[in-house]
């Protein structure tokens, strides 16, 4: 065991509530001691579930071990806690790059560079990606010009197949936007819409009875797909379905975009 790890271990043992677990976990990770690093990170996360650095550390460890799906989820959580976390933006950018989505990779790296302009490695990575995809949008979170919005194209005109299936349903269970097909290609939008409305009522009942407050989302994992239900407005329910090989964090991200798009559309058509 190297001196710094020994010292940091002793510091953590002396004060288990200390944030030194972040440095210890990182030191272990950098030496390739992933099991020990994960143990430190998970113990830290249990104590500090809302610390973005703890999620970032655990995500790095998971990514080093090849568990990219859970790494994405942890970085996604870090970004929810700190939307400008350079580590999480870089991490998600790396995962998008690895998945071949260079445009989204570049968006995240550009946002990371805005948060950490001194990071020269980041600038070099951006230059390499720019050579692949050309200039892209401003960093996530930065002000963007309003794109022309045409409500006649429906609530999800800006989405494509890679974003999965989407259905927007009213409180009576009628499909008012999007489309969902079963694996054979049969359109099941209307039947599924009715079940979505029922599932939303069940979610409300359960959350009310358990004193959990208003429900925000329901995530369902099946053998081949993951689904997310949420309410873009009090009168509507949204379902987003993606292949299971997409991380849950990606599903949440897509659902947030779809909910925002649905709200915009509903305002325009009312």
């Amino acid at each position, binding site marked *: 065991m190297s001196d710094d790890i020994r010292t940091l271990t002793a510091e953590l043992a002396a004060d288990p509530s200390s944030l030194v677990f972040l440095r210890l976990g990182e030191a272990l990770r950098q030496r390739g001691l992933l099991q020990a690093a994960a143990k430190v990170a*998970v113990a830290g*996360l*249990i*104590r500090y*579930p*809302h610390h973005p650095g703890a999620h970032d550390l655990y995500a790095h460890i998971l990514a080093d071990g090849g568990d990219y799906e*859970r790494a994405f*989820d*942890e970085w996604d*959580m870090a970004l929810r806690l700190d939307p400008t976390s350079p580590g999480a933006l870089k991490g998600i950018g790396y995962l998008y790059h690895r998945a071949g989505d260079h445009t989204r990779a570049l968006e995240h790296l550009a946002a990371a560079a805005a948060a950490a302009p001194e990071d020269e490695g980041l600038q070099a990575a951006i230059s390499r990606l720019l050579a692949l995809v050309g200039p892209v949008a401003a960093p996530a979170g930065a002000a963007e010009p309003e794109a022309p919005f045409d409500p006649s194209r429906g609530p999800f005109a800006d989405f494509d197949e890679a974003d999965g299936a989407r259905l927007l349903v009213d409180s009576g269970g009628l499909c008012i936007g999007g489309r*969902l097909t*079963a*694996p*054979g290609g*049969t359109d*099941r939008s209307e*039947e*599924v819409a009715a*079940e*979505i409305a*029922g*599932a939303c009522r*069940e*979610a409300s*009942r*359960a*959350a009310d*009875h*358990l*004193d*959990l*407050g*208003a*429900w*925000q*989302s*329901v*995530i*369902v*994992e*099946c*053998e*081949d*797909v993951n*689904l997310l239900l949420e309410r873009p407005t009090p009168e509507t329910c949204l*379902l987003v*379905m993606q292949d299971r090989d997409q991380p849950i964090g990606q599903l949440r991200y897509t659902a947030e975009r779809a909910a925002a798009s649905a709200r915009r559309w509903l305002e325009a058509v009312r």
Partner: protein
Amino acid sequence: MTDDLAAVFEPILQIRGVRGAMIVSAADGVVVAASLMEDVDGDAFAALTASLVGRLGSLTDLAGQGAPRCVQLHAEHGAVFLATGPADLLLVVLAGAGTPVGLARLQVIQAAGQLG
């Protein structure tokens, strides 16, 4: 509660924010075993979660995706995690706000695999 069931519940109940865990019959919402805080009405909790899973099962079946394996209900002040196990059993966990979501999900899925 048998030692086997206690061993299933133990790692879940150690997660920060968890208020209880139950094993429920998915078919009728009856509690098979439970370890819940006193203020949680287990019978109602079981019936509600079984009903939610039943409805979600109809939805996923119509979508041609089979039965749910794991469900997370997230709300303002907490969450419910559940995973399906063998023999039509559900492992259901009630968690307060601040519970580490990824860890809870993982433990629930692992524990559900030990049922039956």
